[in-house]
């Protein structure tokens, strides 16, 4: 277990929390999660969205008004938080290989592992990022993503100039399909299920579809 100090808690959009914790000696791989524990010992896993060598661990958290997110939303600078050792199996860019051809599909805070990977691998240039959010304000690091790869932002609850209105699953026809491309999906289970099914229908072998979803009933 780790215990580190909160550096900052922000709410960049309603219902979205950005938490920065001092990294200390924590070592992780892009795609890793940690489980954050509230004082009652209840934990939830969150993906790290910062780069490997940055001084802070950054988390993007959808405020579900559950017992853990409510506690996170009320954290203050200087508070000490307890969290697990980083763990994970989702490895955008095949364990950090910046040369691999990758496509990222994310919804909501599912963008976190991709941001972590891109911040860690400055030379990585994915083929595309398809990123779905409810409102434009929910989208984080859009300029950064756009600077690194063609990015399509899909917004479901409002029309915004320059962005696509609708779900990522409405825009799958934009995804490049090729035998050497790896597809990385992160977000809600229903989206991941739909996108996986679509990719397989296009002949993408399952071994090139990489998924990150925590199934919580």
């Amino acid at each position, binding site marked *: 277990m780790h215990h580190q100090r909160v550096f900052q808690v922000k709410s960049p959009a309603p219902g979205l929390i950005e938490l920065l914790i001092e990294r200390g000696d924590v070592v992780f791989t892009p795609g890793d999660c940690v489980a954050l524990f509230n004082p009652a010992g209840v934990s939830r896993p969150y993906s790290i969205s910062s780069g490997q060598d940055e001084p802070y661990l950054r988390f993007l958290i959808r405020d579900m008004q559950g017992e853990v997110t409510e506690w996170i939303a009320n954290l203050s600078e200087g508070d000490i938080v307890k969290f697990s050792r980083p763990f994970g199996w989702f490895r955008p860019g095949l364990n950090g290989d910046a040369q691999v051809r990758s496509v990222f599909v994310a919804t909501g805070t599912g963008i976190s592992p991709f941001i972590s990977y891109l911040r860690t691998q400055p030379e990585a240039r994915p083929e595309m990022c398809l990123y779905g959010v409810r409102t434009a304000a929910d989208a984080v690091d859009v300029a950064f993503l756009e600077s690194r790869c063609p990015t399509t932002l899909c917004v479901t609850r409002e029309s915004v100039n320059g962005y696509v209105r609708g779900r990522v699953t409405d825009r799958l026809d934009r995804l490049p399909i090729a035998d050497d491309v790896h597809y990385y999906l992160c977000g809600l*289970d229903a989206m991941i299920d739909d996108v996986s099914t679509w990719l397989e229908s296009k002949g993408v072998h399952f071994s090139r579809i990489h998924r990150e979803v925590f199934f919580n009933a």
Partner: protein
Amino acid sequence: MREILKVDWLRTPEGDSRGYIESTELTEVWFHTGTNCNLSCPFCLEGSKPGDDRLNFLTLDDVVPFLDEAVAMGCQKFSFTGGEPFVNPHFVDILGAALDRLPCLVLTNGTEPLCNRFAEIVDLQAKAHDVSFRVSLDHPDPSEHDASRGKGNFKMALRTLGQLHDAGFHVSIARLMLEGEDSPERDAGYAPYFQEAGLPDDMTIIKFPDFMTPGSMASVPHITEGCMTQYTDEAQRAAYMCSFSRMVVKTGGRLGVYACTLVDDDGDYDLAPTLRESMQVRIRLKHHRCYSCFAFGSSCSEGH
């Protein structure tokens, strides 16, 4: 045979002598890879969930001395459970080392952590021994399975079973046993799904009752010495997992050998630091899950 001298280990609350098993020969060693899991199923007997560290990740260095000791004792098989074993970053290396020595069985939920390492798993076929996979499919109804594990989980686990089978691995499933169920009918409910995934009709289906979550105090009858002599014979007693197997567990950074796969939430079953010493301890059937072995003949082992 060594006896643990604790009153509640030796006696039931009524003062009767508890039933016991004296282990014979060690033929199977289980390794608990850690309670960290990608899922958080509400019924999990281990209480496993993402980030959980009640039972720590095993490393290759932790495991190798036990592999060698087990082989020297005549063990015939290694088995692995979690948590989800493939969440443990060391697991493929551990499995590889085990397969250099003996056949292995892996219990898995058949989801992302396994799928994302599929190519490494296929490479294990070059090893000296075979590995079998047992995938959890709790119910023959996808919606019931997904209610605890998440949308699309049944489909994914089923597909993983098919892929493992296609790749040449032996596969089986584990399911939940419902109270009063018609077991043959419930087993038969899987047939169309097996067919869909290209799996054999006669797949082994291992059934487990509700073992309850760790630390639970289930109200079950206590098993006395009288129960064990009156209701079981020698062959039945020999089929108890604690008669022929052990499980290696790491807690608080310390390795220990437990009596079986179901009692790692009770420190009394942390028998010894080595397999050989653990076989010298008389196992009292104190844990509420011991009753599942007594009443239902439950066993995590396969083909024993």
